C-alpha cells in the first residue's frame, strides 16, 4: 500500500517538474517581451496620467530609433558568433562626417558618400575577420582606433558643421538644411518620424533576410558551428564578410541620422554604441555563442532598453546613474549568457 503511495507522489512531483520546464521554455521564447510589458506597467504606475500619451510614446520611439538602426545590423555579428563589432562608434562617427563634408555636392552625393564609407569599413572588417580569421573583438577594437586616428588627421581634430562646410554657396546651404532636416522629418502630424520609419523598415528587411534568404539560413549554421558549416560546403568567408558589410551599412545609416540630429559631424557621435547596442541585442535573446534568437526578439530588446531609460528618466535618475544601471544590466545579461552557454556545452 505504502509502496503504491510512494510511486504516485513520485509521479506527481515528476510531472510538476515538467511543467516548470515548459514555463522555462515559454520564458525563453517570450522573455524580452515579458520584460517590455513589465516596464510598461512600471511606467504606468509611476506616471499614470500621461505614460501612454502620444508625447511619451513618441519620445520613447524617437530615443530608440538610432540604437535600433545599429542593432538591426549588429544582430548579424552576434548571430554569426563573432560577439560584437567594436568599431561601431567610429563607423557611426566617420560616416556622418564624410556625408557632412560632401554637403557641397548635393544631398544625393552626401547621403551615398556616408553610406559608402560605412560599407567600406564593413568590407575591411569582413576581409580581416572572415577571410584572415582575425580575432573579431581585437580587430574591430584596433580598427576603431585607426579610424579615429584617420578622422582626426583628416579633419585636423575639429568638429564639422553642415552650414559651415556649405560656406556661402546658396545651393550648398540648401543641401545643409535638407541634411539637418533628415532627423526632423515627421509624418502624420508629427507623430511618426522618418527615423522611426527607417528603423522599422530596417528591422523588417533584416527579419526577412534572416528567415527567408539563403544567406540568413546559412549564417545560422555558421553562427552555431563554424567547422560544421565549413565542412558542409558553405562559403563561410563570404557569409561572414557579408554580415560585417550589413552591420557597418546599418551603422552608417545610423551615423547619417545621428549627424543630422546633432547638426554636427564629430568623433564622439556614436560613442558608447558598441556596448549599448550589444546590450539590446543580447537582451533580445541572441547569445554570444551565436545561432540563437531572432530579429523579433532583438526589436523587443531595443524596445526594452529604450523603455528602461524612459522609466529611469521618469523616476528622475540622473544621466550618470543611468549609465550605471545600463552597465549593470549589461553585466547581468553577459553573466546569464555565459551561464546558459556553459549548460549547453555540457548537457
Amino acid at each position, binding site marked *: 500500500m505504502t509502496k503504491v503511495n510512494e*510511486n504516485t507522489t513520485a509521479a506527481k512531483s515528476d510531472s510538476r*517538474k515538467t511543467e516548470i520546464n515548459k514555463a522555462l521554455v515559454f520564458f525563453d521564447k517570450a522573455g524580452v517581451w515579458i520584460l517590455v510589458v513589465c516596464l510598461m506597467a512600471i511606467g504606468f504606475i509611476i506616471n499614470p496620467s500621461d505614460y501612454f500619451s502620444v508625447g511619451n510614446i513618441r519620445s520613447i520611439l524617437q530615443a530608440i530609433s538610432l540604437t535600433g538602426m545599429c542593432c538591426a545590423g549588429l544582430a548579424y555579428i552576434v548571430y554569426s558568433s563573432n560577439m560584437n563589432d567594436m568599431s561601431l562608434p567610429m563607423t557611426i562617427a566617420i560616416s556622418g562626417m564624410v556625408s557632412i563634408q560632401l554637403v557641397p555636392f548635393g544631398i544625393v552625393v552626401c547621403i551615398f558618400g556616408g553610406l559608402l564609407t560605412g560599407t567600406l569599413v564593413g568590407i575591411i572588417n569582413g576581409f580581416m575577420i572572415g577571410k584572415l580569421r582575425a580575432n573579431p573583438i581585437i580587430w574591430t577594437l584596433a580598427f576603431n582606433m585607426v579610424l579615429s586616428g584617420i578622422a582626426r588627421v583628416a579633419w585636423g581634430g575639429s568638429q564639422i558643421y553642415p552650414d559651415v562646410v556649405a560656406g556661402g554657396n546658396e545651393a550648398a546651404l540648401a543641401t545643409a538644411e535638407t541634411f539637418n532636416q533628415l532627423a526632423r522629418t515627421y509624418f502624420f502630424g508629427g507623430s511618426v518620424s522618418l527615423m522611426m520609419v527607417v528603423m522599422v523598415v530596417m528591422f523588417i528587411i533584416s527579419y526577412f533576410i534572416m528567415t*527567408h534568404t*539563403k544567406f540568413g539560413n546559412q549564417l*545560422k549554421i555558421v553562427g*552555431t558551428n563554424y567547422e560544421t*558549416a565549413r565542412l558542409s*560546403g558553405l562559403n563561410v568567408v563570404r557569409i561572414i564578410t557579408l554580415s560585417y558589410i550589413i552591420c557597418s551599412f546599418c551603422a552608417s545609416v545610423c551615423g547619417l541620422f545621428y549627424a543630422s540630429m546633432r547638426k554636427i559631424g564629430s568623433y564622439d557621435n556614436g560613442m558608447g554604441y558598441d556596448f549599448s547596442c550589444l546590450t539590446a541585442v543580447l537582451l533580445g535573446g541572441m547569445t554570444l555563442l551565436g545561432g540563437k534568437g531572432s530579429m523579433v526578439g532583438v526589436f523587443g530588446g531595443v524596445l526594452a532598453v529604450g523603455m528602461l531609460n524612459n522609466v529611469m528618466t521618469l523616476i528622475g535618475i540622473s544621466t550618470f546613474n543611468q549609465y550605471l544601471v545600463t552597465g549593470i544590466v549589461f553585466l547581468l545579461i553577459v553573466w546569464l549568457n555565459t551561464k546558459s552557454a556553459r549548460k549547453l556545452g555540457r548537457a
Partner: protein
Amino acid sequence: MEKKIALQMKNVSKRFPGTLAVDGVDFEVREGEVHALMGENGAGKSTLMKILAGLFNDYTGEIYIDGNLCRLHTPMLAKEHGVGMIYQELSVARRISIVENLLVGRLPKKNGLFYDKKEAIRQAKELLERVGLGYLDPNKPISEISQCEAQLVEIAKVLGTNPKIIVMDEPTSALSSEEVQRLFKIIRNLKEQNLAIVYISHHLAEIFEIADTITVMRDGKKIKTYPVSETTNEQLIHDMVGKSVKEFYADRESHIGETMMEVKDFTRWGFFHHVSFELHRGEVLAICGLAGAGRTEIARSIIGVDPLDAGTIVKDGREGTYKDMTMAIKNGIGYLTEDRKVMGLALTQSVADNILVSIIDKLSRGGLYNPKNHGKIVEEKIEELEIYPPQPNRLVNALSGGNQQKVLMAKWLATDADVLILDEPTRGVDIGAKQTIHKAVLEYAKRGNGVILLSSDLPEVVGLADRAIILREGYITGEISGEEITESSLLMAANGEGKHVS
C-alpha cells in the same frame, strides 16, 4: 562470497518535455564488477548515467551509493560521492594542454597561492602511467594527440578524482580494435582495484569479452539483468530490440560500372605518400588500416580542408584538386565527418536545418530560401533513416547519440553528390540503426554512385565493401577484393602480413 553493492538505483525516472527518457529503472552494480548497460538508440542509457553523474536535478527515485541515500543534483555532488563519468561525446577541451585538462579544477598550488607546475606535471605523469600513456608529454595540447589517446586521457582524468564507480558511455566508438584491447587491459586493472564499472556499448563482442553482468534497457525501462555467462548473442539482441533480428548484412549484389573518380599520387608529407586508387560507379571501396594509418587525413585532403603536397583527382573529365568543401560538393563529393559533435552537426539547431544545410545553395532561388518549403525532403530522409523521434523541429542535441548519427547521414544523402566519403558512418548506433544506415549506403551505391568507406568496424567493412585497399603508415600496401575480404584477411593485411600485402 557475494561482492558488496556499490551502487543501487531504485525506481529512477527522468522526464524531458515530451519524453519519459528513463522510466522507473532499478539498477545495481557491485564492486569489482563490469556491468554492461545495453539497449537500442534512445533506450535511455545515457540519460540514466547522466542522472548518476548529477546532470539533472529533477530526476525522481532513489540512488544509494555504498548503502547511503544520495541526492545527486549537481555534477559536484556526484563527484564527491565517487561517481566518475566518461561521456559518450568526448568532453576533453581541445586547445588546452593535457596536464591542465587532467587536473582541471584541482591544479596543485604552491604556498597556497601559486600554480605548482612541477607538481602538476608529476601528478599528470602518474595518472597517464595508470592508463598506459606514460610516454606522452603532458605539456602537449589535446588537439595534437590521437582520438584513442584523448579517450584514455579522459579516463585518466576521471581516475584522478578517485572514483568508486566509473561510467563509460560508448568508450570504444572511436577506437580501433587493438586500442580496444588496450582499454580492456585498463578496465581489468580497475576491476582488480575493486571499482564498480558501468560500460555502455553497442558492440556485442566487446560485451561478451569484458562484462560480468548485463542489464538491458528498452524505451526507458529496464528489461532484464543477467550474468554474461547465462546469455547468448541472439538472446541479448532479442531483449534489446524486442524481436529477433536475423540477417545482419543484407545480401549484397553489386553492379560495378566504369571508373568515376581517380585519386592520383596523393601525398602529404608525413601523413600519406603516393596514394593512388580508382573508384567505380556502384562500388563501395573501403580504405582500411590501423588508427593513425592516415585514412581521415586522406579524406580531408581530398575535399580540400587540409593541405596537400602533391597529387590530383580526376573526376567527370576534370583533373585537379579542390580548394575547399564548397568546391568539392560542386564536383559531387560529400564527406561525412568522423566527429559528429565538433564538425558534423549544428547541435543547437533543428533536425530539419541540419539535414538541409548542404543543399541550401541548390534549393535557393535567386538568393531566396525558406526552410519551411522543403519539409518534404526532410520528412523523406527522416523516414528513410528512421530517425526517432521523427520530429523535424526537434533540436539535434535532444536526440540520442545514435539518432544524431542518422541525422548526419541524412544530411549527406540529401545532397546529390555522386561520391560519398563516409568516415565511421555507424559510430555509436545500435544494431537496428546500423542496418538502416547500411541499407541506405547500399541503396545509394546501387543507384550508380560511389562510396569510399573509412571504418574501424571490421564486420562493417566485410559486409559492405566490394574492394578494400590497405593503408599502412601512410602507404598503400595492398588490396583485397570481393569474397576475399574477411575480418582476418583485413586484420592481417593491416598489420603488414598475409598474401594481400605487396
